[in-house]
């Protein structure tokens, strides 16, 4: 009947590892998603470029 205590030991060790990971990622994660440079690229490539392409394709892309 060693298994229950073994399992409980593993569970406890895993909880410690998860706690360590959570503590590590909490530090410095506030507002750390996309910075201003990232937003510029996202707007340029995800909004401006598609709009330009859509308008350009509509007015100039038609096959003869």
């Amino acid at each position: 009947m060693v298994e229950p205590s073994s399992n409980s030991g593993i569970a406890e060790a895993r909880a410690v590892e998860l706690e360590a990971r959570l503590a590590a990622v909490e530090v410095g994660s506030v507002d750390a998603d996309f910075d201003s440079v990232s937003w510029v690229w996202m707007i340029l490539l995800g909004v401006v470029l598609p709009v330009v392409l859509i308008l350009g394709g509509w007015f100039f892309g038609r096959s003869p």
Partner: protein
Amino acid sequence: MSNGATSSADESAWPLTPAERVWSPVRLAVTLATAAAATWCYLIGEAVGGYLGFVEGAIALSAGCMIGMLLVLLAAGPASVRFGIDSIAGTKPQFGARGWVVPAALQAVSIIGWNSLLIIFFAKSSIQLAVAVGIAPVGVAGAGFVPALTLFACLLIFCVLRRGATGVSAVSNILVAHVFVGFWMLYLLVSHRWPELVAAQPLAASPDRLWNYTTGIELGIVTTLSWWPYIGAMIRMAPNGRSVVLPVLLGMGAPVPLLSLIGLAGVLVLKSSDPAQWLRTVGGPTYGIVSLCFVTAANFGTAIAGIYASAIGLRNFRTLERRSWTTLLTITILPVAVVGAFIPELFFAKFGSFLALIGVAFAPLCGIQIADYYALRRRRLDVRAIFDDAPGSPYYFWHGVNPAAIVALIIGCGVYVALLNPLTYVSEGPYRFLTASLPATAAAAAVYLVCSWFVIRSGRGGYRRA
């Protein structure tokens, strides 16, 4: 990984620490490009070629792909880049401590379904390659080689993924060459057949030019939205948001439309989107063999990335959290192997329709995540709550499920299907002005915001009350 406490970090769904997130932008871009480029590229091109000519089709598809990629990045990106978690763990703030099984099921069915198709494609193109180079007799395809090669591919994928995300990246560094082979194939077709290409007319075009154009854009959007299940498991390996944006938008968003032009050009000029067939026409048997190598490598790289993402997604289930990585990989690959071994032809013929229906859900899913993260939570997430599924925890909502997300998802899917039947492409209402994915995203976001007003008033969901 063992059953013990210590495990290889990229084989678990737990947050990756900053020290473990070491992928450079180039490494991430190479991995994403290898994952994105597969047989579906020329199937997408073939679909667009039914409605639009080459230039219009290329432009509409490129625009749609970039829009879809942005939506996926805005939705799944923040949780993954902040905490090093995958797409599925990132849905817990919206769907709840138990409700995340809904996106997890969508991910599992979508990835396992797509990868079954890709591995069957892999087996078929391997057989064609063996016949083309003379190491297998003509007619070998009917001799049970597809199931055998499918199982062989599953075994190879299993071996590669024993190394977790490192295995994905290592294989991608080799297979990324096929992306450039794809560009070369496109160059060949464009340079040899340009006058025919620009003059070619689509065969299934509607008399309504706006409808055709919108459908090209829609096909691009829905294609890249289907990367939602994959992306979190990859971008969590990069250290921050800045190192993710360009690899995602250019590494994953751009190769898909560019390689889709192979199928688009092929179907317009030679009435075949299969590059192996038309490259033989353009350049003889050697070019055909090169193209078969491209197809084989492309599908293999994508299947590796997909099965890795799916395995990480399954890791979020408590019962699978403690299983060894080997066991988890076996569970993830087994359905693919069974399909490939026993029902490849039936699956090939029928499952595409089901996947088209599943794909409808990713637009509303993105809308829900974007509304929740940017409008309701004001870019604040509680990573502890993501890994706390006890009753009373911030993301427990009611019985572990946020009804606002479920209602929004259903209504978003309903809006999509009301605007565009994904199987027949019969459209209704303002589809021709709006597409179907964008209204479905907006409708899901709006419904989620309205329903969340009641959730916030009840004090659930870990929202900050004004």
